[in-house]
């Protein structure tokens, strides 16, 4: 019970937000397209929170986060297809399993690579991410339905306001509890000084692995929801650019700030999708020219990292 008591304020605000959204959605006051973007924003929040735990709090630079997002997406879509799942409640176990699958693979790959130094960890995660992309491109060799480079079509649309909103809510709460506990303290210590952390009794390898697996699991859950929102998956959605997307969100939100990640996710999705509505098609391509420049400018402005104050 104290689980809820501690976060009263947050829960009250969330309840209000939900009611507001429900009204807007139920009466189609906002267009279907914007409804979809809103749900996508919650999904991105979940996945970004995962990267925030891995990188923002623990300091492990991962360029492969989208791979786990993809693993969750494809796993969940495959399961709902072969078991013919259509309802939200029967979907929940599938979502959970997809998250666990992504987290498990994260754990497996993490065991050997997490001891690498920053830049090598970056390359290793980049390599793994690209490997997953290659596997997804060839996925029709394993099972026809996965679609390979043609894409995975015909996924049932299960993600609605309730599913995405409350999943995000639950994950925010759990993540908050993780971070504001001794585990979060250990992760932040590791980020600051791994050697000193080990000298005071923190099992740094295990903590890093735990953070990484948890983060990958969140990515997987996000991916599972994504698959059942957009009902179509293509391997190109899960490449390095997507990983960079998540990274940008974590950086903008301020490394190691849950609130910051939530705001940044919503703002970033709003920005990207908003551009799609606002800009004429010709200028749309400029997005990915301007964004890298902003990214570089951001690095120049705050070169010593965007450490959010607690």
């Amino acid at each position, binding site marked *: 019970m104290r689980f809820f008591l501690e976060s009263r304020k947050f829960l009250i605000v969330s309840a209000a937000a939900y009611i507001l959204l429900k009204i807007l959605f139920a009466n189609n006051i906002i267009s279907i397209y914007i409804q979809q973007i809103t749900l996508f924003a919650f999904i991105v929040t979940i996945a970004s929170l995962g990267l925030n735990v891995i990188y923002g709090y623990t300091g492990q630079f991962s360029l492969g986060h989208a791979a786990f997002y993809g693993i969750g997406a494809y796993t969940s879509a495959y399961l709902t297809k072969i078991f013919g799942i259509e309802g939200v409640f029967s979907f929940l176990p599938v979502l959970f399993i997809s998250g666990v699958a992504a987290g498990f693979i994260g754990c497996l790959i993490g065991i050997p690579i997490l001891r690498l130094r920053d830049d090598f960890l970056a390359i290793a995660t980049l390599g793994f991410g690209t490997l997953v992309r290659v596997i997804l491109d060839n996925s029709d060799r394993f099972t026809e339905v996965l679609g390979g480079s043609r894409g995975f079509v015909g996924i049932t649309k299960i993600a609605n306001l309730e599913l995405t909103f409350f999943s995000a809510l639950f994950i925010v709460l759990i993540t908050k509890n993780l971070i504001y506990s001794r*585990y979060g*303290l250990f992760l932040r210590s590791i980020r600051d*000084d791994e050697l000193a952390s080990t*000298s005071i009794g923190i099992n740094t390898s295990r903590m890093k692995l735990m953070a990484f697996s948890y983060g990958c699991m969140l990515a997987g859950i996000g991916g599972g929801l994504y698959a059942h929102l957009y009902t179509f998956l293509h391997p190109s959605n899960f490449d390095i650019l997507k990983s960079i997307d998540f990274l940008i969100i974590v950086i903008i939100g301020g490394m190691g700030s849950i609130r910051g990640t939530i705001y940044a996710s919503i703002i970033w999705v709003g920005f990207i999708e908003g551009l799609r509505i606002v800009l004429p098609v010709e200028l749309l391509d400029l997005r990915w020219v301007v964004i890298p420049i902003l990214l570089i400018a951001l690095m120049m402005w705050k070169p010593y990292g965007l*450490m959010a104050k607690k």
Partner: protein
Amino acid sequence: MKLLEVINLEKSFGGVKAVDNMSFHIREGETLGIIGPNGAGKTTVFNLITGFYRPDKGVIKFSGKHITGVPPYKLSHLGISRTFQNMRLFSNLTVFENILSAVLTGKSYGLISALFRTNNYFSSEGKAEQRARGLIDFFGLSGKEDYPAESLPYGEQRKLELARALSTGPRLLLIDEPGAGMNPREVLDFVDTIKVIKDKHSLSIIIIEHQMKLVMGISDRIAVMDFGEKIMEGVPSEVKKDKKVIEAYLGEALE
């Protein structure tokens, strides 16, 4: 009873023998000083004892048990703590968090308790915070709990690092050149602090230090290293007069 025993320790780095045939021991309640010119291998010995390096040869025993090759975090749980020569605080954490993190590495609540905020979580956290505050008061850092650790003046940062090392309730504390950068008043203050800690916590201490006043003032015995080897060992008054020691420090004034 020998608390720590180091036997024939050897460590080389790419052909250079940093530590050669190093043996010594320390009893419960003793303070052992390790002195020697720069590059003598003193910090390497610390790193070997605390599990940061693996010795090429030799054995390390703690309370009679072999601990050679045991990783640092396990040694912390066994009761060995240390500070670092170039000071390694958690600079982005507050003073309070630096201490609390060390307190919480002991037996405490698990992951599920944390995620679901069980009663066990709240009571464990409460106890840990109490202990942390006690340590902060003892080291004279109260009022500064919420300051980022890096904002403290240098002398207090050193104290904080020491406090953090003590937070795990060790039986053996290794202090690496605490006197570096301290003025004479801070040194005297430090010596007093160590004396009080020793009595209060029944601690054994090994201290590496260059400042003779500090080392002589605290140590029951002193081991002298040069070129990776122990060249002499004895009580402070003996060490001060020893010819080999004076030679090793050629050019440096022994007070």
